[in-house]
C-alpha cells in the first residue's frame, strides 16, 4: 500500500491528485519551481519540495531531480498528472527502476502509444477502424502522391512521432503535395528527431469524441463512457462534455468495445483515453491513445460517482478493478469549462498577474477544480489554465444552465479570464443544439461583451468619491507604508529570507 505520493506536476491537477491521496490516507508530496512557491498546490500539500528554477525544462521536466526528491521525501509512488512528464515512457521507466511505483501505464505501452504509426497499426490489427491512409511511413514524394490518389484528396500528412500539430499538414490538391511533404518532414525531424511522415484521409469538420477506459494489471478493462471534446481553440480543448450529444447507446457500446480491444492488445493498464474522430454518419476512426489522466476527466467522474485518481492508485498498487462493465451506470449530463487567464478582448493574450479579488462559484451541482486564491500571483511560465468548472445536470440543458450560472458567479479581478468567451459559446444556438465539430470555433464569431455604459457609470461613481478626497494621490489604490512596499518586494523575490533572524 502506498504511504506517500509525490505528484510530479503543478497547479490544479497536483492539488486534485493530492486530494484523493489524502482521502485514501496517503501523504501528499508536492513539488514547486521557484515561480510556484506560493501556489495553492504547494500551500495545501502535506510537504513540498523545491524542484528547480521556473523554466519547465529545469523543474517539472527534470526527471532525475524529481526522482531524487521522491527518494529524499520517502515517497513510494509518483503520479505524473497530465502534461509535463505524464506521457514520457523514459520517465516512467526511471521511476520504476528507482524502486518507486509509477501511477500510470507500463512504459512499454506508453512507448507503443507514443508512436502514432505503431498505434495505428495495432488498431488495424485488432479491427478498430482507422482513418484510411498509408500503412507505413512514406519515404518519397512519388510514393506519397500515389497513396494520396488512392485514398483521395484532401489528405493529412502526419509525423509518426508527432503531437501538438507539429509536422502536420493538410493537402487539398495534388500540386501542393510535394512542398507540403518536404515541409512536414523537416518539421518532424526538427521537433521529434524523426522525419517519418504518414498519410491519412483528411476528414472535414469531424467531431472529437474520446472514450475513457480503466484497466488493471490482470487484463480487466472497462470503458467509462465517452467525452465530446470538439470545442477546441488552437488544438486545445476548452469545453468538454459527457455524453456526446450525438452518441447512441449502440454506437457507445461499439466505440467502448473497440477501445477495450485496443487497450487489451497494447498490454495497457491504468487510466487512459482512446481518441476518435467521428464523421457526420457516426463512423468513428481511431485517432490516438492518451496514456494518462486527462484534464477533462472530471466530466466522467461526476456522472459515475467515481474517483479516477483513486482507481489509478488502486491499479498501480496491484488491485483488481472492483467493478465490471455492467456496473457502469452513468447518471445525467456533465460539462466542463476550462478557465484560462487570458484576455478575450485582446486576442486571447495570456494574462498573468496578481489575483486581487476572487470569489469562485460553488453550490448545487458545481465542481471547481481550482489552483488559485485571492492574493495569488499567476506566473508567466506555464499554461495559463487557472481552474476547471464542472457542472452536472439531469440533462444537457440543465447542465448548461448550471454552468452558465456558475460562470456568472465566477468573480476574478486583477487578471483577465475567458469567462465571457465561455458564456458566449454555451449560448450559441448551434452549440445548444449540439451541432458542433472540431472547426466550430474557427467558424464561431466572437465579439467581447460591451460594458461601456456600465463602466461609465461605475467609473464616474468611483471618480466622484475620489475627487471628494482632495489629499489623495492619483496613483493606484492607496498610499502604502514603507513596510508594505518592502513586504511586497520581498514577496516578489520569493520570501522574507533576507531579513529574517
Amino acid at each position, binding site marked *: 500500500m502506498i504511504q506517500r505520493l509525490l505528484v510530479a506536476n503543478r497547479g490544479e491537477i497536483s492539488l486534485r491528485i493530492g486530494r484523493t491521496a489524502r482521502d485514501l490516507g496517503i501523504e501528499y508530496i508536492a513539488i514547486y519551481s521557484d515561480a510556484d512557491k506560493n501556489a495553492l498546490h504547494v500551500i495545501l500539500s502535506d510537504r513540498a519540495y523545491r524542484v528547480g528554477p521556473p523554466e519547465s525544462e529545469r523543474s517539472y521536466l527534470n526527471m532525475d531531480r524529481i526522482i531524487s526528491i521522491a527518494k529524499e521525501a520517502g515517497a513510494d509512488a509518483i503520479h505524473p498528472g497530465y502534461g509535463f512528464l505524464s506521457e514520457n515512457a523514459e520517465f516512467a521507466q526511471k521511476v520504476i527502476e528507482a524502486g518507486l511505483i509509477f501511477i500510470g501505464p507500463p512504459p512499454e505501452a506508453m512507448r507503443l502509444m507514443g508512436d502514432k504509426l505503431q498505434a495505428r497499426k495495432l488498431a488495424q490489427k485488432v479491427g478498430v477502424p482507422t482513418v484510411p491512409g498509408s500503412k507505413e511511413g512514406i519515404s518519397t514524394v512519388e510514393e506519397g502522391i500515389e497513396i494520396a490518389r488512392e485514398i483521395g484528396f484532401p489528405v493529412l500528412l502526419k509525423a509518426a512521432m508527432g503531437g501538438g500539430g507539429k509536422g502536420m499538414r493538410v493537402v487539398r490538391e495534388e500540386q501542393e503535395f510535394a512542398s507540403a511533404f518536404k515541409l512536414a518532414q523537416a518539421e518532424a525531424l526538427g521537433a521529434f528527431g524523426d522525419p517519418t511522415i504518414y498519410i491519412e484521409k483528411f476528414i472535414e469538420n469531424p467531431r472529437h469524441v474520446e472514450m475513457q477506459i480503466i484497466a488493471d494489471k490482470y487484463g480487466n478493462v472497462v470503458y467509462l463512457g465517452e467525452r465530446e471534446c470538439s470545442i477546441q481553440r488552437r488544438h486545445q480543448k476548452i469545453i468538454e462534455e459527457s455524453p456526446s450529444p450525438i452518441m447512441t447507446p449502440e454506437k457507445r457500446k461499439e466505440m467502448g468495445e473497440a477501445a477495450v480491444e485496443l487497450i487489451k492488445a497494447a498490454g495497457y493498464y491504468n487510466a487512459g483515453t482512446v481518441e476518435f474522430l467521428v464523421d457526420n454518419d457516426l463512423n468513428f476512426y481511431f485517432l490516438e491513445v492518451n496514456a494518462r489522466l486527462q484534464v477533462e476527466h472530471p466530466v466522467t467522474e461526476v456522472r459515475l460517482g467515481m474517483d479516477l485518481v483513486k482507481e489509478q492508485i488502486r491499479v498501480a498498487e496491484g488491485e483488481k478493478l472492483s467493478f465490471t462493465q455492467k456496473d457502469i451506470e452513468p447518471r445525467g449530463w456533465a460539462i466542463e469549462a476550462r478557465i484560462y487567464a487570458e484576455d478575450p*478582448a485582446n486576442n486571447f493574450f495570456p494574462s498573468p498577474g496578481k489575483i486581487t479579488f476572487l470569489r469562485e462559484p460553488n453550490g448545487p451541482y458545481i465542481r471547481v477544480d481550482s489552483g488559485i486564491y485571492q492574493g495569488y500571483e499567476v506566473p508567466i511560465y506555464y499554461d495559463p489554465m487557472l481552474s476547471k468548472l464542472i457542472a452536472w445536470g439531469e440533462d444537457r440543458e440543465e447542465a448548461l444552465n448550471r454552468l452558465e450560472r456558475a460562470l456568472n458567479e465566477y468573480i476574478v479581478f486583477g487578471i483577465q479570464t475567458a469567462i465571457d468567451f465561455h458564456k458566449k459559446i454555451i449560448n450559441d444556438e448551434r452549440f445548444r443544439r449540439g451541432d458542433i465539430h472540431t472547426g466550430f470555433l474557427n467558424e464561431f464569431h466572437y465579439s467581447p461583451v460591451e*460594458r461601456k*455604459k456600465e463602466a461609465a*457609470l461605475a467609473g464616474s461613481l468611483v471618480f466622484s468619491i475620489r475627487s471628494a478626497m482632495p489629499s489623495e494621490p492619483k496613483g493606484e489604490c492607496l498610499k502604502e507604508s514603507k513596510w508594505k512596499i518592502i513586504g511586497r518586494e520581498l514577496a516578489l523575490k520569493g520570501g522574507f529570507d533576507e531579513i529574517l533572524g
Partner: protein
Amino acid sequence: MKYWVEFEDGGFEVSIIDENGSKRIFLNGESSEVELLSLDGKNTYVAFVDGRPLIFQANFKSNGTLEISFPDRTHEMTIVKSIGRSGERRKAEQKGPRKVKSPMSGLIVDVMTEIGREVKKGEALLVLEAMKMRNEIKAPRDGVVKELKVSKGQTVEAGAVLLTIE
C-alpha cells in the same frame, strides 16, 4: 456633479445628483438610483443600480486613466469634470498618436511592419511569444507607423510601448 467619461471610441456624459438622501445618476438620458459599497475596503465595489448589483474593480493607472473591470470585461477610460462647455468635451475627444503597448512580458519573435508603413486596423504588426504561446500584436486603428521601438529577438516588459501609430 457632471462628468465626461471618454473611451477610445467615444464617450458619455454622466451626472450624479443627491436626491432625498440617495444618489441618482443620469447617463445617456437614462436615470437610475445608485449606491456604492466597497467589498474589500479597497478598490473592489458593488454598485446597486436601481437595486441591481454590479460588481467591479476600479484601478487608477499611472497614465491618468481609470480602468474598470467587470468579471467578464475591462474598459479603460478618462474621466474629467465637465463644466458644461462643449469645448471640454471636444478636447477630450481629440486623439494624439496612438501608442501600441505590450500586453505582457515576452519575446518579440517577428516584426512585420516598419516606420512609415501605412497600416489598417486589425493588421498584424508584431509577434510576441509569452507563456509558450505566440500571439500577434495587431494595429488598433488605421494609420501610419510613426515609431517602432522594438526589434526581433528583443524581450519586452508588460506595458512597454512597442510602436506608435499616427
